[in-house]
């Protein structure tokens, strides 16, 4: 595959990936209360070998309102 096409494929894959992850981050709002997302960090023995994920804690924030026009 030519380098340029390979870059385009990578870009497309990244875009798709972002779109998929963005979609995955949006909870199902037809069932309330909204379920918290799965923990996406890493838990080790101590905080020094772990990665936090505050997403679940922040889930109660509403989705930004969309323009109505």
């Amino acid at each position: 595959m030519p380098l340029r096409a390979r870059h385009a494929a990578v870009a497309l894959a990244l875009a798709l990936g972002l779109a998929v992850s963005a979609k995955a981050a949006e909870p199902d709002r037809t069932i309330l209360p909204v379920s918290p997302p799965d923990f996406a960090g890493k838990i080790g023995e101590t905080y020094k070998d772990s990665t936090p994920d505050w997403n679940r804690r922040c889930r109660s924030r509403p989705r930004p309102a969309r323009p109505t026009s």
Partner: protein
Amino acid sequence: MIVLDDVGYSQLGSYGGPIDTPNLDKLAAQGVRYTDFHTTALCSPTRAALLTGRNHPAVSLAAITEAATGYPGGYGSIPKSAATIAEVLKQNGYNTFALGKWHLAPYTAYTAAGPFDHWPLGMGFEKYYGFIGGETDQWAPLLVQDNTFIDAPRRDGYHLTEDLVDHAIAYIRDQQQASTGRPFFQYLALGTAHAPLHAPKSYVDKYNGRFDAGWDAAREETLRKQKAMGLVPADTELPPRNPGVPAWADLTPDQKTVYTRLEQVFAGYLDHADHHLGRLFAALDDMKIRDNTLIIVVSDNGASQEGLQNGTANTDRYRNYNPDSVKEILGQLDKLGGPQTDPHYPMGWAMAGNTPLKRWKQDTHHGGNTDPLIISWPARIKAQGEMRRQYSYVTDIVPTLLEATGLPAPTSVNGVRQMPLQGVSMAYTFDDPNAPRRRKAQYYEMLGSRAIWSDGWTAVAWHKKDDDWSRDKWELYHTDVDLSEAHDLAAERPDKLHALQALWTDEAKTYNVLPLDDRRYERTADPTRPIAAIEKSAYDYYPGTSIVHPLAAPQLLGREHTVTAYATIPEGGAEGVLASSGGEFGGWSLFIKDGRLRYAHNYLKIEEYDVASAAKVPSGAHRFSVHFTPTGKSLKPDFFTGDVTLSIDGGSVGELKDIKMAGQYSAVTGYGLLIGRNTGTPVSHDYEPPFVFTGALDKVVIEVAKAPKGEVIGKPKNDPNLAD
């Protein structure tokens, strides 16, 4: 259910303590008290476990809400899969009331806009009157009613405990006179006896001479009484003094004077609470509902060592690594416990308050997690003044209440599947003091320290902050016969120790305990943490609005900022506070008095700065502002320095140079941001609160720079009086 705060194992009279608690003692005489009851060793975690019946990290309360982390065990926000007992009872027809301390809302929810789903009304209670967070000024509390911050009542002699009990009685009377026939559940969480230790002077003076023999003698006398009343076995040994506590005999006369008075203040505070709880019990008698009312009295953790070696007259000082000296406290001796002080007693008295146990609040040794528990229910529990020795844990209370009320644990609440309860009902102990215990095991973890109890044995490892956990020394006790953890058997029984360590690991994995985390104030400096308000460069505030909690207000400490009040001065002038934040123990206030614009800055009551315009403010519409420019930062003590410019309509009318601004006041105790008034305690004693502004105030705009890079709140090491 009555929750006492920071009351240790041996501070009530019915547990051998030296403080007069006749009403709680009478309650114990009308029921049973538990000799081997345990909590998590910290406030929010115990309360979460108490109300949900699940282990604290299983419901995301590994530590206090303000110390939340980005891990499931530490989010500081109880999941909806763990409904509180209030929610369960409410949906089964009970009226539900909460009063007092509510340290179960995420720190990001301390705002006038909530979110309210973790405030009491969002957690199963129908009414609420109290305070959100860990502590509040008992003379001038930062209050909440239902879902609204309200100004502190202003009347001579006001004390929060009395106010809470008044409301507690009124809630029940309202409910009873409605004559619906419905039962009720009331959760009354007093501020007593958490700092600030605030008590009427008559209660403090009552204890003149009671503690003069010191904490070593007090421990011995308490243990003698505990043995005499059969609370502990006759062969119970007193362990050595806790680390950092000197022998009373080695103290200077000034130290003895200060430490004794601070213990008197604590005693007066608890005695005063007991008096008002007596009013509540009498009200139940008067309504003729006492016999069939199940009353539970519990504390949340061991007595608190947070007053460090000297104690303090201002807890915000040690939070800023600038603790007051004995000499400084000595100068305020007669004021201790009053509205102009924010005291805590020294750690030696906490040790005595946990007799005969080792260590204190925050620790997983028995001194941290063993607490008084009294249960009285005359219509059902026939025992009068008996003791129950079965090991029990705070998660056992909810199963006990469900069994007592004949209700099942719900599998689904509001459409959310519920996690199983993690405690064991204690109702089996009500009638049979010798019933074999039903508890098999319980793990402990608090701020890095670990422990596990199983079948009468306890393995425990105290953790020194910042040390590698692999270096923690594990101890082993046969606590069935050695409640005071006096004989470490780790070397003799390595097999037992290893088995318990393995069990701890299993339990830790089951209940979200990992990762181990010993960070304290560093957690609040984590830039990835969510914050209550969206970060903006300017915030608008309006008069007539409620107080803005310190954790939801713009974070001004050490940051360049401008506070601008847009106001109209009528002909003939105006006076009052345009904006204020904090109070007696630290804060700032922009106000007009005697016709002049003024800015007062109170640095932890150590230094008070004041600048005033030379000319009187003119009538008409104006911009009154104060600008702070940071110039430096100190870590020990923790403060910022900066310059202040006071302006009217953009023109400078006064300056202050090199003032000190606290590094982290107001995080827990401080009063919040107020527009057009200074309720609570005054930032400046040049006016009387609330000093409401008499002109026309349109709004106040606070412009604030982003946090300076490298702003890290750190703790200097190797100072024993600056321990976390």
